């Protein structure tokens, strides 16, 4: 049960971040934050296939985390999210074609270790 929930946190969470990034890069930079423009943005995102799958995947990951927290304590739940920092950096390099220098590799690893310690 715990392993299933952990997989339901990491896999949809990672997929959601990748899809949302792809979808938002295709949408173009969001520059105008007036309420009317934000409503137009939401309307256009509802028709964006990447975001339309990414946001529900994010919700699956969120509810799986809530479920895991209700049956196990934080020290079981958080290592999964800490691990995803490094995993997503690797995927950002190969799938999103982001250029990742040593500062980002070291930074993401430090953040992952830090999050692990903060949660315990």
């Amino acid at each position, binding site marked *: 049960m715990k392993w299933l929930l952990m997989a339901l946190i990491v896999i949809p969470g990672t997929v959601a971040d990748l899809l949302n990034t792809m979808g*938002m890069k295709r949408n173009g930079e969001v520059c105008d934050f007036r309420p009317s423009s934000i409503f137009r943005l939401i309307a256009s995102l509802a028709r964006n296939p990447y975001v339309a799958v990414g946001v529900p995947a994010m919700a699956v990951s969120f509810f799986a985390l809530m479920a895991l927290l209700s049956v196990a304590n934080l020290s079981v739940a958080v290592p999964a999210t800490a691990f995803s*920092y490094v995993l997503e950096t690797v995927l950002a390099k190969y799938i999103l074609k982001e250029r990742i220098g040593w500062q*980002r590799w070291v930074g993401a*690893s430090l953040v992952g*270790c*830090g999050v692990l310690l*903060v949660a315990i």
Partner: protein
Amino acid sequence: MGHGRGDCDEPGLTREFTARMESRSSTATLRSVLNNRSQPLRLKTRTVIVLVVVSNVLGHFFLSRGLHEVGPLVSFAPWPYIHAFLNPLVAAGVALLMVWLITQLSLLSRVDLSYVLPVTSISYVLTALMGKFLLHEPVSTERWIGIGLVVLGVSLVARTVPRTAPVLYRSRNLPYEAAQ
């Protein structure tokens, strides 16, 4: 395809301003271009990051306090969830998390995922500090070391160029670009 800084540039405004300068328009006209009422509300990437972090921390804080008041939710029926929304803390938490979703997506439209994830993780530090100073929860040595590592990691990543991913399309939510 180019590599942007992730800060929206201002082609429309700059172009109009330069054109007016070259045609030697009066100072009043130039000022009216700058004070144009239909100007979009632009936010710097740095401001968007602050909004993402603050809405995330406060959203989760209100949601967890509110759900604590409501009691456990273990049901597949919709009624208990609708009932939970009537709690003002839960409603505030959900509203803030909606702000988080929109600002997070806006941030991803402008900068790299491998920049956003580590930098916004400063929210873990804020949550821990809020627990210490508002709720007077003790912070263990391990947690202080963790906070230090997160801060170090964030400051390393924050020094990199925010956007290296190719720019596929220019902004679609700027009013005057659509008109050009």
